């Protein structure tokens, strides 16, 4: 159980990290948090060694580089919405009929679009934060000793990843990695892609082992 708890805490931290990275521009607090955690910092090797960090202040880097990259990747040149990738007409579906929104609704989640500054709940950052929310719920279930709840949440996570995130996010993330112009977003995109793939394997493994006895 301790291992599972540690795994869940790690997953929560990672989903929080990558969803935050993709939902809004970074700020100094966020960057300091990354840099202060050795394990997370290790996920950004080129960021660590980026020469511009020696020449410029964090504020300058944010204004002149990170924000520019963010705008390119998430607002201007790429389209970070699932519906864009999965619909034949490549329209962003912000309506109620969007299956991702339907899923959120079914689980009583509502996206505060204004706060997220996105036009639809199937934004990459929102979907990642949804995984974060599910992991948090799992941790609560774990603390309450609710194994069924934990496993049900693994099932939901598996379904969400299979039917949604993994259907499109890899394509977006490969594009983002290619189009990025800073180590932060380059490695952030790669990290997200790799983590999603490994997490999907992890979920399946848990369902096969830990949840094997749960109907």
């Amino acid at each position, binding site marked *: 159980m301790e291992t599972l708890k540690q795994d869940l805490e790690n997953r929560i931290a990672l*989903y929080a990290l990558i969803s935050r990275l993709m939902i809004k521009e970074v700020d100094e607090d966020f960057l300091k948090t990354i840099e202060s955690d050795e394990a997370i910092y290790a996920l950004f090797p*080129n960021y660590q060694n980026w020469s511009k960090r020696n020449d410029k202040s964090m504020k300058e880097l944010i204004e002149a580089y990170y924000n520019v990259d963010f705008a390119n990747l998430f607002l201007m040149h790429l389209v970070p919405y699932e519906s864009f990738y999965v619909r034949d007409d490549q*329209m962003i579906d912000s309506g109620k009929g969007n299956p991702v929104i339907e899923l959120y609704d079914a689980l009583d989640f509502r996206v505060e679009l204004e706060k*997220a500054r996105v036009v639809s709940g199937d934004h990459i*950052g929102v979907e990642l934060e949804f995984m974060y929310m599910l992991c948090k719920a799992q941790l609560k279930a774990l603390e309450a000793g609710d194994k069924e709840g934990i496993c049900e949440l693994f099932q939901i996570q598996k379904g969400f990843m299979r039917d949604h995130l993994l259907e499109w996010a890899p394509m977006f993330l490969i594009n983002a990695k290619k189009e990025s112009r800073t180590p932060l977003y380059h490695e952030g995109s790669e990290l997200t892609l790799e983590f999603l793939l490994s997490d999907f394997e992890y979920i399946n493994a848990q369902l096969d082992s830990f949840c094997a006895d749960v109907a």
Partner: protein
Amino acid sequence: MTKSMNQDNHFIESRRSFLKGTAYSVAGVTLAAGVFETIVETPAEAEEKTFTATPKSLSFYPPLEQWDSFKELDGDDWKRGGVGRKGVASENNPDGIKVNEFMLVPTVCSNCEAQCGLTAWVEIGEYKRTKNPRDLFVKKYMGNPLHAGSRGRNCAKGYATQTQMYDPDRIPFPLKRAPGSKRGEGKWVRTTWDEAMATIGKKMHDTLKRGDEVSKKMIMYHVGRPNENGFGHRVPHSMGLDGYDSHTNICSAGAREGTIQWVNDDRNSPDWANAKLIFLQSSHAADAGHYFQQSAGYIADARKKGAKLVVMDPRMSNSAGMADLWIPVWPGTEAALYLHLANRILNEKDIHGKDLVNHAFFKNWVNWEQLMKDKEQLALMVSKGYMKQVPQDESYESFIEMLKEIYSPYTKEFVVKECKMEGYGHKLDELFDMFIDAGDRISTFLWRAGTIGHRGGWMNTRSGFFPLALRGAMAGNIGGVGMHHWHVISVNGKGDAATVAGERPPRVDVWNEIAWPPEYPLSTYEMSHIMPHLLLDDEWRAKWKAKGLKHIPEKLAVWIPRMYNPVWINPDGFRWIEALKREDKIELSFNLSPTWSETNWFCDYVLPVGLAGERHDQSSEPTKPARWLSFKNPALRVALEKLGWKPKDPARATLEAHMTAGLGEIWEEVEFWANIMVHYVDPDGSLGVRKFWASKEDPSRAVTIPEWYQAAFDKLPNLRKTAKLKYPNSKYPNYEMMRDMGTWLEEDHVYRPQERPLRKEGNKYIAHGHEYDESEVEKDEYGTLLVHDHVFGGKKPIGVEVDGKIVQGFHTLSGKLEFYSKWFAEWKWPEFAIPIYPRNAKERKEMVQLVTQVHHDFIDPSKNEFALNTVFRLPYNIHTRSVNSKHLMEISQNHNPVWISTADAKRLGIKRGDAIKVTIEDTVSGLESGYFIAMAVPTEATMPGVLACSHHAGRWKLKNAVEIPGFEHKLGVLGLGAPLYDMTMDGKIGTLKPKQGLNEGMQARKDTWQFKEYNKDLDNIWWDGLSGAWQNAVAPSHPDPIAGNHAWHQKVRIEKAGPDDVIGDIYVNYENNFKVYQAWRDKLTRPLAKGDKLRRPVHMKRPAVPLTLKAYSVDITG
């Protein structure tokens, strides 16, 4: 990211261990953005799905029948969760989502020449509830899906129309220079349209009443980008004046000169969508220039079908960046490259051993016979070394052999050297392969850039069309090059039938030397860029007086810029200011202008006229092989009228509607001119002007909009027929249909009209609306059908026999494409009467009129000298017209540095963001003009030796706001786009120095008094506007000795700015600039000379105002 980064993948190797053996100490909650409301209890006030948040397709548009009332959810629906959660707003549900009721009023974008369709979405729901007209609001501008050219699409400038409409610094009412103040002092008083019309009308009346020759040249209507087809021409025409000045000679007149020589047409008309090769000189068409939004769409269509895109440009524009081939060419040498293509087409064979020349087209449709018979011209060509001897016979085969010889010196090696393509000469081969592979499906739009940047720029079109003609791509066929007048509809000035006169005003019989000076008989358009120079040049006037031109005006009684800002956009701006300040030279001036401008500052009146959705105009452009037109509507007026409002005076309805709806005292030209003419210029009709503007229905008043456009659109048979069917009970069906649709496609798929049979009924030929008895028609030895010219005497062509058939032919004197321009030879330029370009340094001296003023001969890199490429557009700006748009200003900030190649920058130690001093030097007179300080950006995207800085940035103002006595608010001046400057000028030297960024000026009055709700985001202004410099003022006028256009590019010298220099500084020796204009005029032109009897070839139409033979006639003595 870099490759090196990709190689550093140690964490990837360990990706499977994100969880194992790791403990992230950061709590997720400190990182997560937290965008979910979890397990919220949101009332799901689900209603029936009346509104679709996501239309089924991107091309969704309300159907036309719903345009008078279309309901749509408010824009913040999505962020508030939609009606599914909030329901529709109502008294019982105040927190619900607002539903707008829109009336879609079609109109046309006025921010560039393309004339893309727009729809103004007027929110009428609130007005219906409150009955307060001030609740009418244009919520957005969208495309017009009915528009055949733009197909519902727009660029940023179209959508930005709304920001211009509700500009916080919009001029709200007519302004008049304060009595007792000098021009440029910035003291203004509020006036009324009626007072302005009375004062101006009287001045015009008194001038016209004199009735002598000079008085007919003393009122000048100076039109910026017209965005309408022909109304402006009618204004001076109806007064019997030769008084029209266009902006064209700073715009595109160079391109037109070469086109006129080939086809006697204004410009070409491409069929992008069906081309196999898009052949672009510069980024024009694809990303910034003429018609780009429409062209870019058609180019994309073509590329989707496999077409190649080639861009020849010293600068890597957006188009070049996505082209199949980018060829950086030294600016102004493009003609050499075109003639190289011609050389290869003539001298090489295809893989089957067949000629590459499309003889079927070239032999039939090019006037080679005329040249082969002209032994004098052939001898001249031999004497110039173009060829060794006159051909033995006059056969087509000998003609082709002659061409092979003439163009054989334009080798790859020559072009590589001339165009400075060292290191990438192989691109010429790639280009040639693409050119040949495309067959006759090559489309181009040779315009701006090379054709207006340079002395001899006109030879770019002259030589550029040559390889296209050789391949048959000039036939106006599918995917090829057609002609402007085949596709454009101009009826905006043709509402004559609605007036008392009932007919067009007669031809004008004077010639205005201020617009058409005798040094430039072949100038394609008015020499407007040297208008102030000519006005102030007493020596020039005296010289021509002595040669017999007794009636050159010494001054203008009234100068009327119309949406024009020549002070800023023309070269040598201080000379303009100097002239405008001279009340003895320009007695009265008023600008019909929606915004403040640098020019307005020096006028006597500023009369606010409407933007795209606030006026009426008919317009049409050659953007595809079809004849479409578009119609601007004043959205608020149309909405008011459709909802039952009626004006007090139907001839002033647009003004009344705008005042009623709270937009301001904003008028439009059509109503303004009709009213001032009828009531003030010629109130009693004694001048013979009134009848052209008074209503036939009610002669006591001016013609109304429905009357005028009913008559104007009646000229179009298909439109007329459809309108009658759709509006059977209407008195003005043409007008009403166009009011409701905003666009019309009169004829589609217009290809090869030159091959259409010449109409013949019985024994009469019918051409251009006239009948000619067969007995009057004579056929010359080349097959051209000629008739007597009743206006100018002599003969004029009406058709041509080709391959045994009598067809309409091209619009030239021969009825064919004119490889040899005989009239051009007769008008003093025989050595340039065929496409030609100097082949060596000696010829560059002899043929100086064809050599760009920034040729590399003149540039010494060791002295830090460069060619400055100034002619390219920023796609989200439009010269002087977008400074009132907060959105366009925001996205264009810092986008106009001086581009310098990285190699040059490194050599000079210049880094990104450095301020540099750019000093302009003239290569004809050797004089320096002064300098501007600008920001350098090293880049690989401009070729070494060539700097690039678009001349579209660097706006300025001298006051942030003006006080209007008796008016409670200050009027802001260009707050969104022009910083505050200090100006000095002493008659010789002018300077401008930035004083304050615009953000500071704007923040001081961010709580604007007008359109406050719309502008509540003004405190978001982050830009200071100080990244550009007014380089146009430093630039002297370079009148091309033949085409007359200003040759924009400049030879410059650069150095790092000094400690006291700041970006935006300019220093101008405008005394020198005056001498530069004189040097270009006197050293390079071939003016009218003793014995000359005509001012200009009569077949070479003077644009705008039709003239009599008397006007064309001259007797140069002395």
